[in-house]
């Protein structure tokens, strides 16, 4: 008893809240002589300055018994708050009857902040661990960032990789090349930035000749790479369905049966006319074209919601890009 009180006082002085009463665990299955256990118990009194290398200490002779003690301790400590009454069953914890004021002793034995306190040296070790963790996590994240590989068939073009992000547009240079023909000042090839409208293309070709109405070509339409824009010339009906007809379908020419529909230039009506494609699906195809700046391959059609494998098989012969 008096020893216990003494240790309590000493413990508070030393800012360690938990100090064992003598003989705290009786159910010790392993032979741990008092002499072996004592250095461990006494060592703990020391001011929360805890060694950062517990593993090394386990191997040493005197603390070996104490290590067993520590392994067993959580179970008995968990039990303690429940056994706060003086009528707690003897034999589970041998010294329990010798502790007066059950609730007070329970409160005294609950792990206080001291049990959580790693101390200065402990924090030093934890900080070293944290630095290792941060370095390892950074290395791992860097190593497993997505790796984009270049497309083999494209002539020497590498898909640019910026910080693990693949450029959403496949064109290696962020530039479109379109042909502008017909009644413009400088017909020929023009280079445009991605996302350019038809009006930009006409402007880049020097602008339409006086008296030519561009409105029918839909100047707001986004142009796709490799497109031919014919200004002010009504294409002959036989050519209306050809893939490079530009904005011509807007002029009312129906696609010729059998000629593939260009996904990048087709209107809602053209797509609607395809077998198995209704107005809703046609609208989705147009929306996909707007979002992604045109179709680069027929296979991209499968990415449109509502086009499954079966419908794609049916459509792929009827469309082109």
């Amino acid at each position, binding site marked *: 008893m008096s*020893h216990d009180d003494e240790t309590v006082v*000493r413990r508070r*002085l030393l800012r*360690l809240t*938990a*100090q064992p009463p003598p003989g*705290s*665990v009786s159910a*010790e299955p392993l032979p*741990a002589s*008092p002499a072996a256990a004592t*250095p*461990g*118990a*006494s*060592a703990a*009194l*020391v*001011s*929360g300055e*805890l*060694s950062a*290398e517990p593993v090394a200490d386990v191997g040493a002779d005197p*603390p070996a018994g104490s290590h067993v*003690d*520590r392994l067993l*301790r*959580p179970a008995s400590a968990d039990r303690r708050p429940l056994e706060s009454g003086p009528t707690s069953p003897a034999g589970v914890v041998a010294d329990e009857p010798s502790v007066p004021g059950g609730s007070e002793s329970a409160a005294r*034995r609950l*792990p206080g902040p001291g*049990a*959580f*306190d790693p*101390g*200065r040296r*402990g*924090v030093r070790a934890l*900080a070293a*661990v*944290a630095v290792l963790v*941060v370095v390892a*996590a*950074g290395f*791992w*994240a860097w190593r*497993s*960032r*997505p790796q*984009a*590989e270049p497309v083999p068939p494209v002539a020497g073009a590498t898909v640019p990789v910026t910080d*693990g*992000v*693949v450029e959403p547009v*496949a064109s290696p240079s962020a530039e479109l090349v379109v042909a502008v023909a017909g009644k413009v000042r400088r017909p020929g090839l023009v280079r445009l930035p991605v996302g350019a409208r038809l009006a930009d293309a006409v402007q880049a070709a020097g602008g339409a000749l006086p008296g030519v109405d561009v409105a029918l070509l839909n100047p707001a339409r986004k142009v796709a790479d490799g497109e031919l824009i014919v200004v002010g010339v009504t294409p002959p009906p036989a050519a209306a369905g050809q893939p490079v007809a530009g904005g011509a379908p807007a002029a009312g020419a129906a696609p010729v049966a059998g000629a593939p529909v260009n996904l990048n230039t087709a209107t809602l009506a053209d797509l609607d006319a395809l077998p198995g494609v209704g107005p809703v699906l046609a609208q989705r195809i147009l929306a996909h074209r707007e979002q992604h700046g045109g179709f680069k*391959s027929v*296979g*991209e059609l*499968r990415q449109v*919601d509502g086009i499954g*494998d079966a419908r794609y098989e049916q459509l792929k012969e009827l469309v082109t890009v």
Partner: protein
Amino acid sequence: MSATPDGSGTPIDPGGGPGPAQTIVAGGVPDLRLAGLAVATWLTALAGLHLGAATVLIAAVLAAVFSAVGALHLVGLLGRPGRWARRHGWIAVAVALGVVCGGTVGAARLAVRDADALRSLAEQRASITAELVVRDDPRPIRGNPGRPATLLVTTELVTLTESDGRRLGAPVQVLVLAAHPAWRGLLPGQRLTAEGRLGVPRGGDLTAAVLSASGPPVRRGAPSWAQRAAGSLRAGLQRACAPLPDARGGLLPGLVVGDTSRLLPTVEEDFRATGMTHLNAVSGANVPWG
């Protein structure tokens, strides 16, 4: 086992000088020095799964700053630590270090999971061809009546090829939804190629994308010998249970090795209703001890 400290003959050192044998906290209370760090790490990682990489990385940086400033304060380089700081300061620093650990590791994994390249493909529901490594046994989920049962296969992505030929490699977790019966019976470690359409995962775990497989997997090579051995043992157990009536024959592999592939839906429902699904969820430890 703990003799009275005074009677032991070992002098108690009130000066607090660190000695070689001072790792043991006083008897009677558990050694909880790592608890703050561990709980903080765990909670930060859990929060990261729901809050995203950026949030958790910011939390980690703030915690790192806090722990550095706190440590400097506690050693006396930044002002004089007050009473509370002396008493609880190192605990707070340890907790902050836990946030640093959990935050950086979580952010690293989440950043790989949420990488734009794959996420944009998943949002487009792109059709792709993926090279995958199976990481877990395929498990059936109950499908709608009249439709074939769907299999869930947890895999790790090696590379994926888009429809226009671009390839993308990222070591992320991909959940495969497959209806084709050839997906049944795949062993962990099996490398395979599958076609399908990507989808956005539900979130809350490390799954980067969901692949709805459109056909059977094309196997590449064989799984490791250990997995093959385990697989043959499981197959043997299934064969041994085959003559049993359906209810019992499906239950036994579940109890022994957690193989619920043949468990009847009615039996599974019974287990769920009684809250005993853990019995056939994990391991053979149920039977030896049961």
